[in-house]
């Protein structure tokens, strides 16, 4: 009998489910670890691990099958080139689901799902600090651009005074790529 093999429906239509797990798989390969509800994490294992198996095969047909499901070329290439080779010695069980307890708002059980071979690289930054940094940088950059335009039009004498201001305001602009690099490093 084929009872209980179709998996959870999660209150979604088949297309909705498929799209969601394709997105979640892509995010998992990108970030090595994602946080979600426990039923979704458990269900995601099916999809994510099948893609890794395709990646281990690595032939053209499996590449096309992976593209059919994941639909993002960059993610599929990353999966085939960077992620799947690490699982050569492992037969299944490429992901790990860890329970985090219940969520405040709806008491839903929350879990973390991570790629097993990459669990040392996932130092997660608290989300709030990350968004604050990005927000704080953006307006400064815009100001710097505006002030530069003003300096070009202004008289030379004024330009000397304003150059000092511009130099100060340019500093955050230079910092910005470094910070995004840091975030990228930590995400890896």
């Amino acid at each position: 009998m084929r009872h209980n093999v179709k998996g959870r429906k999660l209150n979604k239509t088949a297309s909705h489910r498929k799209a969601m797990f394709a997105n979640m798989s892509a995010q998992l390969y990108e970030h090595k670890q994602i946080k979600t509800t426990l039923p979704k994490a458990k269900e995601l294992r099916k999809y994510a691990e099948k893609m890794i198996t395709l990646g281990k095969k690595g032939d053209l047909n499996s590449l096309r099958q992976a593209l059919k499901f994941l639909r993002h070329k960059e993610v599929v290439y990353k999966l085939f080139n960077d992620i799947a080779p690490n699982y050569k010695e492992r037969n299944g069980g490429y992901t790990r689901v860890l329970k985090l307890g219940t969520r405040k708002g709806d008491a839903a059980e929350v879990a973390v799902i991570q790629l097993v071979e990459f669990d040392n690289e996932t130092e997660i930054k608290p989300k709030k600090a990350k968004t604050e940094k990005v927000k704080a940088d953006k307006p400064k950059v815009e100001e710097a651009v505006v002030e530069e335009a003003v300096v070009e039009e202004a008289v030379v004498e004024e330009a000397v005074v304003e150059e000092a201001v511009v130099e100060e305001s340019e500093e955050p602009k230079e910092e910005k790529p470094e910070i995004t690099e840091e975030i990228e490093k930590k995400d890896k």
Partner: protein
Amino acid sequence: MPVPKRKTSKAKAKSRKNHWKLTAKSTAKCPNCSAPVLSHRVCPSCGYYKGKAVIKVKAD
């Protein structure tokens, strides 16, 4: 059809519910930060599970 003759008194209802209790969840001690944790879950105070940092806790 048989029906109750009397309304259940407050005392009767309450004494019946006397055996209807919540039980405290049993906790273990986190090996990393020695805070009480539920078993099979990531420690909410330090974010460790089985000796590894899983999540970054805000207070850290």
